[in-house]
């Protein structure tokens, strides 16, 4: 029989809720690191939030940062170990709310790191509160009647903000809702790590994800909701690509 | 021996430079020294003062309110610290800018027209070094040559400033010898 799929050796059991796409994000990273043969040089800086659960599943050197501070921790690591591969894995509460200063300034300094930003529009680990990326009218445990823009503002488009800075060399957003998008996501994750290997500076990949548990949906329905609500607001594509002339 | 000196004036009069040079020269002379610049959220050109203690044993407090010597470069500074001088202490007064009479009794007063003398030498910025010369000449607290060397070292990369500063420093010595090495205040040791 022909072997057409092999699970990455650097990922163990799935640590996430059933139907959650975080597991897909982790798997893509693991596959890319292994394919590029950099998994033995990689150091993963984990966030506070659901992303922290990777501490149980990724068989890489890893450190759990304080909430939002992963880009600062990654700065210290990468400046100390320029030949290693340092990346952060952060959620939307971690990166776009409490860690906004750290991500903007790490990007602006052009730190030669890779940032994987998993955006599921909600605080998952703490039980479904309003996130900076929660959609307009979307309900959460702290916005029971939906996100009201007059008091809660609009969902923050992080990839667009990072794109405005001079230093970053690759900024992209993909979605994990379908096989087609997952393949595209893996391609851009690979580019983001190659960028670091080639000393090209700061790369930022935003991955749209779901949260069936806190969106209170069946996994399959959460994917439909992503397609009809999330993706139309957070447009997919490569926003900045210095190597590719964009 | 433990001697406390306060140097006070406007920002820009080289107050801090003077304090540091005395500290460097004392260290070079194998004496103990502390220099403490009073710092604060002050605007450029505001008041500036620093405390310098020289001793032959471990120095405790780097800041004193009983001073052996005061170098006052402007009037507000003089007024502020006048009564911190101990009896038989010495004032070194920039008489170009300080026109008020000393009220503190039992004080040596050395009136040196430092700003005017400095302008005659090169420019007003060397007034502090005229005062330093007068101070070292009158108190003999440090060796003249060591202080001169220290000035030269301090301005290693600014030879022109070093030259002018040393001329100003010598002028200070000349002023004290003109005064016969003595203070000139009527109320001295009354």
């Amino acid at each position, binding site marked *: 029989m022909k072997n057409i799929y092999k699970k990455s050796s*650097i990922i163990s059991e799935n640590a996430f809720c059933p139907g959650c796409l975080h597991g897909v994000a982790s798997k893509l990273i693991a596959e890319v690191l292994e394919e590029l043969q950099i*998994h*033995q*040089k*990689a*150091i993963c*800086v*984990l966030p506070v939030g659901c992303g*922290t659960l990777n*501490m*149980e599943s*990724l*068989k*890489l*050197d*890893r*450190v*759990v*940062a*304080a909430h939002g*501070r992963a880009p*600062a*921790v*990654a*700065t*210290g*690591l*990468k*400046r*100390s*170990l320029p030949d*290693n*591969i340092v990346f952060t894995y952060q959620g939307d509460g971690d990166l776009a709310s409490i860690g906004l*200063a*750290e991500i*903007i*300034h790490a990007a602006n*300094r052009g730190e030669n790191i890779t940032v994987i930003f998993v955006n599921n529009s909600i605080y998952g680990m703490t039980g479904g509160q309003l996130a900076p990326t929660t959609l307009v009218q979307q309900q959460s445990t702290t916005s029971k009647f939906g996100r009201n823009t007059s008091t809660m503002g609009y969902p923050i488009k992080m990839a667009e903000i990072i794109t405005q800075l001079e230093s970053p060399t690759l900024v992209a957003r993909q979605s994990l809702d379908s096989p087609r998008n997952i393949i595209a996501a893996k391609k851009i994750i690979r580019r983001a790590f190659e960028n670091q290997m080639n000393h090209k500076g700061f790369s930022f990949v935003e991955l749209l994800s779901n949260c069936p548990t806190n969106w209170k949906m069946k996994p399959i329905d959460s994917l439909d909701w992503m397609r009809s609500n999330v993706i139309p607001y957070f447009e997919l594509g490569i926003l900045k690509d210095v190597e590719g002339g964009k | 021996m433990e001697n406390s000196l306060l140097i006070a004036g406007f920002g820009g009069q080289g107050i801090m430079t003077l304090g*540091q040079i005395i*500290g*460097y020269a*004392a*260290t070079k002379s194998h004496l*103990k*020294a*502390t*220099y*403490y*610049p009073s*710092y*604060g*959220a002050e605007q450029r050109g505001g008041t500036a003062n620093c405390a310098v203690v020289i001793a032959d044993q471990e*120095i*405790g*407090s*780097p*800041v*004193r*309110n*009983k001073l052996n010597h005061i170098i006052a470069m402007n009037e507000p500074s003089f007024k502020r610290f006048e009564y911190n001088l101990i009896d038989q202490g010495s004032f070194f007064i920039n008489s170009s800018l300080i026109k008020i009479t000393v009220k503190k009794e039992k004080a040596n007063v050395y009136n040196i027209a430092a700003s005017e003398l400095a302008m005659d030498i090169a420019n007003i910025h060397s007034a502090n070094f005229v005062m330093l010369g007068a101070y070292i000449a009158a108190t003999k607290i440090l060796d003249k040559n060591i202080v001169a060397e220290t000035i030269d070292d301090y301005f290693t990369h600014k030879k022109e400033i070093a030259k002018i500063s040393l001329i100003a420093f010598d002028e200070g010595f000349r002023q004290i010898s003109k005064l016969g090495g003595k203070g000139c205040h009527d109320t001295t040791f009354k």
Partner: protein
Amino acid sequence: MSQLFMKGNEAIAESAVRAGCEFFAGYPITPQNEIPEYLSWRLDEVGGVFVQGESEVAAVNMIYGASCAGKRVMTSTSGPGLSLKAEGISYLAASRLPAVIVDVARTGAGLGQIKPGQNDYWFVKSPGHGGFKTIVLAPHTVQEAVDLTYMAFDLADRDLAPVIVLADGVIGAMMEAVTLPPFKDTYPDKTSWILNGAENRESRIISSVTNDLNKLESFHVYQKELYESWGRKDVMVESFMASDAEYIIAAYGTSARIAKTAIRILREKGIKIGLIRPITIVPFPYEAFEDLPYNNVKGILVTELCIPSQMIDDIQLGVLKRIPVHTFGRGGGFIFSPEDIIDELNKVFSLED
């Protein structure tokens, strides 16, 4: 060894370089600015890394990252910045990462004033959430600031823990002669725990969080034992003219050196007075106060550049009300003089009557 006349902040920075500090991240705040300013060019010169963080929060997390990589790391700040670094210090302690944190203290809560103060004593006793301690070293001269900073790196590596050097605005801003220590050339081996990529070994994790509650509790027990061991072996205290003293001044840092001048003046008048100066704030030298000859000592004056007194809490634990303990301080960034201390001693103990 030749002596250099150096500013406290710059001397601390140079001492860190000589202790092998390879990574510094900081953020501007008075009165410690000369530390990052000096290291911004000096670390470059010796092949180290300097990063000016976007905040104190970022700076402390940058040293957290560099410490994970096994580097000797330092950050410096003053009171308001220490509040922001408290988060990172707690994570450093919980993740067992060595680091040196310098606090050049100023006066007042909130923004207070940039002028000198000893207002962070209570704070550094446990500088963050979750119940942990760090060793706290408090210099009273520029030379001691150099020596204790140098030592702090070794203590941090020994315990795999953050260590605080608690200076104040006077020590930071003043200049004094120092003899600098030699450049260190041997360091503890950290290869067994650092992160540098899982090549030919199992992958590692550095984390302050664990789902294994038994493991977490074992760590808490370890912390308890570590802090107790500090009390047995790391206490440093200076006794100055105190052996026959009838009156004791208790002070640390700048207020202690001011007290020394007051004591010399009073000793010349035949008054039996001395100083007990904690050099380690944590572990605190309780024994120096427990073991006072209480048949001879009549009273203690705690002098600090802050109001209200903060160190009195620890002094009282040592003295246990056996003799009167008074406090004297200046707030608002004012510095008391030796004469001010003498006046206060006369007021509370009628010394010169």
